[in-house]
């Protein structure tokens, strides 16, 4: 099993070496980049938005219900919701959700192309299939995913605001002043960097698993599942590492 792990890791880095070769034609690359950005990022906006609004609302209720102490200012609810969203939810939680959506999309697409010989056909034409198919996906997801972090952050705060407004669980003015209290811009940068790294891992691992899929439809399903499991574990591991490196 350990031997298999090292072989797979080596193959993954060799795969990345093929992927990160100069595109054959930049015009084709940019066309693919825009298509992939639309397919992988823009199509995730609705999912991320819905989840963010609800999580923002839930965070407000949970935080407020755990702060009954009269010595604690109710403004802290807004502060804690903001910090929870930007530090953990908008990057790590959203990345875990995207591992399922984007990861399975990439792995199954490339896997089916592999088993129907479409990848062989591209290679036979003399085109670097890994670079043509994978590079636009990886770059689109890595570069544009911070936009999802910002969107998730804004909508999470909005979700919280809606709950505060509708339930009056805390005064709206307190929630608003909590959101503004001790705002650290660096946390936004930290969250965006984390998300980019997570999304690079999600897309490249899914692409690796899909590109080398074998064993028919069952193999495609297996590679998709494996890519999601590996991505989720790595996201949590790297969350710890990046947080240690950037916040302490």
């Amino acid at each position, binding site marked *: 099993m350990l031997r298999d792990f090292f072989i797979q890791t080596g193959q993954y880095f060799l795969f990345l070496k093929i992927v990160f070769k100069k595109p054959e034609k930049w015009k084709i690359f940019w066309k693919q980049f825009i298509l992939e950005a639309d397919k992988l990022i823009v199509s995730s906006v609705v999912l991320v938005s819905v989840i963010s609004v609800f999580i923002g609302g839930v965070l407000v209720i949970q935080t407020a219900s755990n702060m009954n102490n009269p010595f604690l200012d109710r403004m802290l609810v807004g502060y804690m919701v903001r910090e929870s969203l930007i530090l953990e939810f908008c990057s790590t939680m959203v990345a875990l959700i995207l591992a399922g959506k984007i990861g399975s999309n990439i792995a199954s697409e490339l896997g089916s192309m592999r088993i*129907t010989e479409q990848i062989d056909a591209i290679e036979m034409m*003399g*085109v670097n299939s890994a670079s043509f198919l994978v590079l636009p996906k990886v770059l689109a997801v890595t570069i544009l995913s911070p936009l999802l972090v910002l969107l998730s952050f804004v909508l999470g705060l909005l979700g919280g605001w809606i709950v505060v407004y509708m339930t009056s669980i805390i005064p709206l003015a307190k929630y608003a002043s909590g959101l503004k209290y001790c705002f650290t811009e660096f946390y936004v940068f930290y969250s965006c960097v984390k998300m980019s790294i997570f999304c690079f891992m999600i897309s490249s691992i899914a692409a690796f698993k899909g590109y080398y899929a074998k064993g028919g439809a069952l193999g495609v399903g297996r590679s998709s599942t494996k890519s999601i499991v590996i991505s989720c574990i790595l996201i949590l591991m790297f969350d710890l590492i990046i947080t240690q490196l950037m916040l302490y």
Partner: protein
Amino acid sequence: MIKIEHLYKSFGDVHVLKDISIEYQKGLCNMIIGASGSGKTVLLKTLIGLLEPDRGSVTFNGKDISDLPYEEKKLFRQNIGVLFQNSALFDFATVIENVMFPMDFFTDWSRKRKIERALYCLERVNVQGNEKKYPGELSGGMQKRVGIARAIALNPEYLICDEPNSGLDPETSIMIDQLIHGLTKEFGMTTVINTHDMNSILEIGDNIGFLHQGRMLWQGDRHSIFKTTCQELRKFVCANSLARNIMERNE
């Protein structure tokens, strides 16, 4: 001309190809025939460089592509048109985009010229009027024809077809055979077809190699196949009633 010399290929302990030597001439429909599992697809994939041989060589007009550096190998591959078993059309592209795909990468032609060439290729294989459809909207026979159109888009010197008749009805199958045969003669290509369809062999087999358990046991044309003394080949040929009748009449 394609020349294969003393080719060996194994997967672990399984020896799939054993000492294969054969020549494929220009302007002919060269065929690799044999039962399922005889090593035909492995031979074809080794021929086009998708698999590396363990031993032996494959030369195209005297040039061994396995020796070439990656960039040169890529350039050389533009000379080879391949029709895969299930056509391998790109799901993400329309019919015309599939045919234009190699032109987009390897020519500096204007869009108008690329469209004209793609339309010519599609017309040549009789699938005009379906340019904007996606592969999933086409029948198996039409997909094969689009696959052929894509394979000849850059006017290649070599055309390699992996079981072009699989999954097709007899009428469409003959149409595809005649199309490949016609294109081979028209463009003077070196065509290699991998098949176990006896009707195709009798229809267009100019130069036939019979593969049995990884060995090339017999080589000849579609006329001499009925006079063979190779028992394995006789068994293969006689599995088809039409061919059996011809063989019995000859005897």
